[in-house]
Structures are given as C-alpha cells and as structure tokens.
C-alpha cells in the first residue's frame, strides 16, 4: 500500500513535471525549426496536430546531435593533446568525419 501510494505520488510528480515541461517547451525555441521537423515526420508517417510534441521531437533530436558533437569534441581534444609537436598555442577545434562515429 505504501509502495503504491509512493508510486502514485511519484506519478503525480512526474505528471506535473511533464506537463510543466510541455508548457515550457512553447517558450523554448529549438535550434531545429518546426517546419523541418514536421516535413521529415510527415515523410515517415508521424501524424500529430500538437505543436508541443513537434517541439519535443525537435529538442530530442537537437540533444542527440549535440551529444554526438560533444563526443567528437572530446575526441578532437584528446587527439590534439596527444600530438607532441604543437608549436601553436591555440589550435582550431575542427570536427572531422571520423570523430563522428
């Protein structure tokens, strides 16, 4: 019983958090434009009139790409640190295709 009550409370918290989040999504403008997301989702059969869900998908994709870029950056930094011959102090951090995968 206690467990159920706790889970119920947890659910309510999660519910509220989620609904708050969805509401806040309308203020947040993701980097990927809504039109682009709608185009590709429509191509794959995703049908939803709700703009918040479109924004959610956009944010999720942005997060994914940001994670990939971040990992690449780490790789790049590690590669540059390993290079012994480094005369220049600052080197431009350039992403290359092998760092993405």
């Amino acid at each position, binding site marked *: 019983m206690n467990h159920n009550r706790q889970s119920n409370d947890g659910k309510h918290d999660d519910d509220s958090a989620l609904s708050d989040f969805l509401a806040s999504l309308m203020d*947040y403008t993701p980097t990927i434009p809504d039109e682009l997301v709608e185009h590709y*989702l*429509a191509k*794959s059969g995703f049908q939803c009139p709700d703009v918040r869900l479109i924004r959610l998908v956009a944010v*999720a994709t942005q997060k994914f790409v940001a994670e990939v870029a971040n990992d690449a*950056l780490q790789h790049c930094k590690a590669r540059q640190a390993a290079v012994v011959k480094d005369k220049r102090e600052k080197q431009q951090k350039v992403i290359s295709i092998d760092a993405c995968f």
Partner: protein
Amino acid sequence: MSHGDVKSTRDTIKSENQQRLSLGRLKADEFGRAVSKIAVAQICESVGFQGFKESALEGLTDILVCYLCDLGRNASFHANLAGRTECNLFDITRALEELEASHGFPSASDIGHCLVGSGTVREIIRFVDSEEEIPFAQPVPKFPIVRNGKLIPSFEHMNEKPPGKHIPTWLPAFPDPHTYIHTPMWNERASDPCADKIEQARQRRKAEKALLQLQQRLVCNGSSGTSTSLATDAEKEKVQGGESNPFLAAPLQPGEKDVSQVVSPAKPTDEASKGDHVSMLEAFAPAIEAMKGGPSDGEKLHLPEKRAAVHFKFRAGKKILGEPLDLSLQKKGERGTTAFLRIEERDDKKRRAEFILRQTTEFPMELNQS
C-alpha cells in the same frame, strides 16, 4: 565559423546550395537538407567547435535527418500498434527509448514502469534546462509547397452525358471528338459572283483614285508658282495658262527655286499665281468631286499651304513626270485647254490612258525642239 576547406558562413552554405541548384541536377529534398545543414552548424557552434570540414557537415546532416525519420517511424509504429493513427506523448517516449536502448538511459532496466517517469524524458528536460536557447538563424517557410493540380473537368462539370450507362458522371470527361477523329473540311464561304464583281470594281476604282491623286499632286508641283521672283514673260504665260488648266503653266527655269504648292480646295495659296489656282480649282472641280468618295480623300487634300523651297537639278536626259508635262503643255496653248476640258467629261480610265499617251508621244518632240 570557419570552414576547414572553404571559408563558410551560413550565407555561403546557402549560396553553395543555390549554386548546386542552378546546375540543374536537383536531388530530392534539397531544401530540407540545406536547412538541416544550417541547424547542424548552429548546434556544433554551441557545443564549442570553431570550424568543420564539408564532409563532416554532410555526415552530421545525414545523422540528423535519419534520426528524425527513425523517431517518426517508431512513434507512428507504436501508435498503430495501439490502434491509433495520431501519435501522442507516450508513442514518442517509447520511440525515444527504443533509439537510445543501445546507448543506455536511466531507468532502462525498470520494466513495467509508467512512461511518464521515463529516463529519456527526464534527460530531455535536463537538457532544455541546461542548454541556452539558440533559435534557428533564418525564417523557414512551410514546405513542401502544395500546388493545386489542374484537374480534367468531370462529365457533370461539362454538362455532358457520358457515352454509355456504365460510366458515372463524376469521372473526367472524354476529350472532344475533333481531337481524335479526322473530319473532312468544307469551304463554307458561299461564292457570290455578283458581289465578287462589285468588290473587284470597287478595288479597281480605289487604285485609280490613288493614281489620279498622285498625278494631280505632280501636276500641282509643276504648275505652282515659285517663292522667288519670276520672269515677267513666264508670269504672263502662267496667268494665261492658269486660267484654264495647270498644264499650260510656265516651265521652271534652270536655277529657279520651285516651291511645291499644294492646293487645298478651299484656299488659294500663292499670291503670284492666285488666278492660276482659282481657275485650276475650277477646272479640276468636277474631277475632285468625282473623286471624293472616301474620307481619305478629304484628309489628303488638307495639306499645308506652302512648302519649303526645294532645289531641283535639271538634267536634259532625265525624264521627270512633272517637267515634260509643263514643256509639252506650254507649247499647246489654247488647244491643250479645250483638250483637257474634253477629258474631264470622259471616264477616269480613259482620261488616264489619254494622258499617258499624250505624254509619251509629245515629250520626245518637245525635248528635241527645246
């Protein structure tokens, strides 16, 4: 942001894409990819990169597009599984969990839990809270643009009855029979020999009128008085000749300036040869009236009174229409007047023919004499 190979900003990316478009080989979804490239570039910039290679940018764009398509496909799959066509939050959450299953996400091992508390969503919430908002650089129009296709009108629309009961009226109409059946062509114009003759005669008369007007104008040129001083004997002769007809006008002396005077029926033009023109008008009056058929005649006669003096070069060998006329007519004197009056009484055709005949026969004679 600088490019590894080429210095590129968001504008140059766009221009590159435009160049590619101008080449003509438009790949499908070119616009979507271009927009995705810009978005990816912005995300990379926010992460901390200062430059990227073209190949890397293309790769990341592919990743973005694939991720979006996969997410949509998975979400619609889950919605269809639940017997719906429209996706909701839980479909997206399940799809997200599926995609991230390989990497792992918090609460992945919890089975049978409510999706509301899913780890993926929590992570997204965390991401939104931590990251600063970077809106897309350019305004993006709604795409793809849907064009209203031109539809073939249906039988109902055309108010046509479909040939055959088995064809419903809401289907597109058949093309017109003349587009696929060769029908013989008949000349529908009814031939009216009487009307044709009348028309022919009318056209002939028109041509003659034009010719006559031309001759008249040339005659006027020859018979008109000059703006400079004239010899008295020439004047006298002119007065003599001008009484009756312009054919008896004095010939132009070499070196004299000839102002071509154009006579309008109502106005006498030159003071020196006023008498000329009045009498000439009288002489020509019946002919002029006969000619006055169409409005064009009246228009042509409304010409300026005086024209600028024109210098003519007189060469003996050259045959100018105006000159021989004067030469020939000067010698005739009274005889020419009566002859001319007689001519007016005849038809246009006959008058013309006689005139031309006279010109050809008498000109060589006069030329020899002078």
